[in-house]
């Protein structure tokens, strides 16, 4: 008598596997504008405009930062054109500003150049750390809000400063995970959680993200969105990393909504006890 193994059941079709929730059913809303993607990208550091464009499109982003600088004569192509032809909204920043006055001037020029009153406000203290200067930042935020700007401030991971920025009318707060371009990840998740708990506006982690697991962690901590640039543009394969970040942000959001289990010090059996 020969052994006749049972015919194994056909594996479930991959198409039948439950997918992550449709992002359109869980949109990000900032100042009344709705975004399907919770990944906000930057454009600095890309090896070429072609690679940048492929990475941005792959990332699924709908909002992307640009800087404002003096026109270089006879430059071929522009990041502005890349964003326009892909339907990605530009978010001008005030990178390079060290005072509230500088930031105001840059924001006004950005509004004129890009026809948007949205501004990612950066006022940094020094070139070595690029850490926000809290005094100048709050001053600039208040003045820009008064001028009718929709202000998204890059801020320290300081719950008190985040609250003050919201109180002066900022449309979101963007605490750093770690210094710009460092890839150090989220150095103080506890502070990020405190900021998320108290915030009445979206919280967007900004700076420090190095890889996909860190973007997912930001979302699991309850952040509403992730802003990153270097992690994609300076990756060995920027387009592949853009895909990884897209999926990490979606996965992290889903995990946050699903609700993680409590952390325990000791084991809890998941199999029933033996009778």
């Amino acid at each position: 008598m020969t052994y006749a193994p049972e015919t194994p059941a056909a594996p479930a079709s991959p198409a039948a596997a439950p997918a992550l929730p449709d992002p359109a059913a869980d949109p990000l809303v900032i100042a009344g504008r709705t975004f399907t993607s919770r990944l906000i990208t930057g454009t600095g550091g890309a090896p070429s405009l072609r690679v940048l464009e492929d990475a941005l499109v792959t990332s699924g982003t709908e909002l992307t930062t640009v800087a404002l600088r003096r026109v270089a004569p006879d430059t071929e192509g522009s990041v502005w054109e890349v964003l326009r032809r892909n339907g990605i909204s530009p978010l001008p920043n005030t990178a390079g500003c060290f005072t509230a006055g500088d930031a105001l001037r840059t924001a006004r020029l950005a509004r004129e150049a890009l026809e948007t009153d949205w501004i990612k406000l950066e006022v940094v203290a020094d070139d070595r750390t690029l850490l926000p200067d809290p005094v100048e930042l709050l001053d600039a935020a208040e003045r820009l809000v008064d001028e009718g700007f929709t202000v998204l401030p890059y801020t320290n991971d300081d719950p008190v400063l985040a609250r003050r920025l919201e109180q002066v009318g900022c449309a979101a707060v963007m605490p750093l995970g770690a210094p710009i371009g460092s890839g150090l990840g989220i150095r103080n998740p506890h502070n990020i959680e405190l900021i998320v708990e108290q915030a009445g506006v979206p919280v967007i982690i900004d700076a420090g993200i190095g890889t996909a697991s860190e973007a997912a962690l930001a979302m699991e901590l309850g952040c509403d969105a992730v802003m990153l640039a270097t992690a994609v543009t300076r990756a060995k394969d920027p387009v592949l990393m853009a895909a990884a970040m897209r999926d990490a942000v979606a996965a992290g959001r889903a995990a946050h909504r699903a609700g993680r289990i409590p952390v325990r010090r000791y084991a809890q059996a998941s199999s029933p006890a033996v009778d």
Partner: protein
Amino acid sequence: MDVIINGEPRQVAPRTTVAEVVRTLTRSPGGVAVALNDEVVRRADWAATVVAENDRIDVLTAVQGG
């Protein structure tokens, strides 16, 4: 007439307008903003704004950043 355009000393003809300065720098003025002595000049006013001796004109555009 001596002026400073994007930080560089330049000579321009009398009665040169901001619009003409922009045209010397770029053929695609979309996405461009102008500051005249640190004050924004609205796009609608470029053609009517005449630069003066020793003015500082900055012509800026969106670049990769952030």
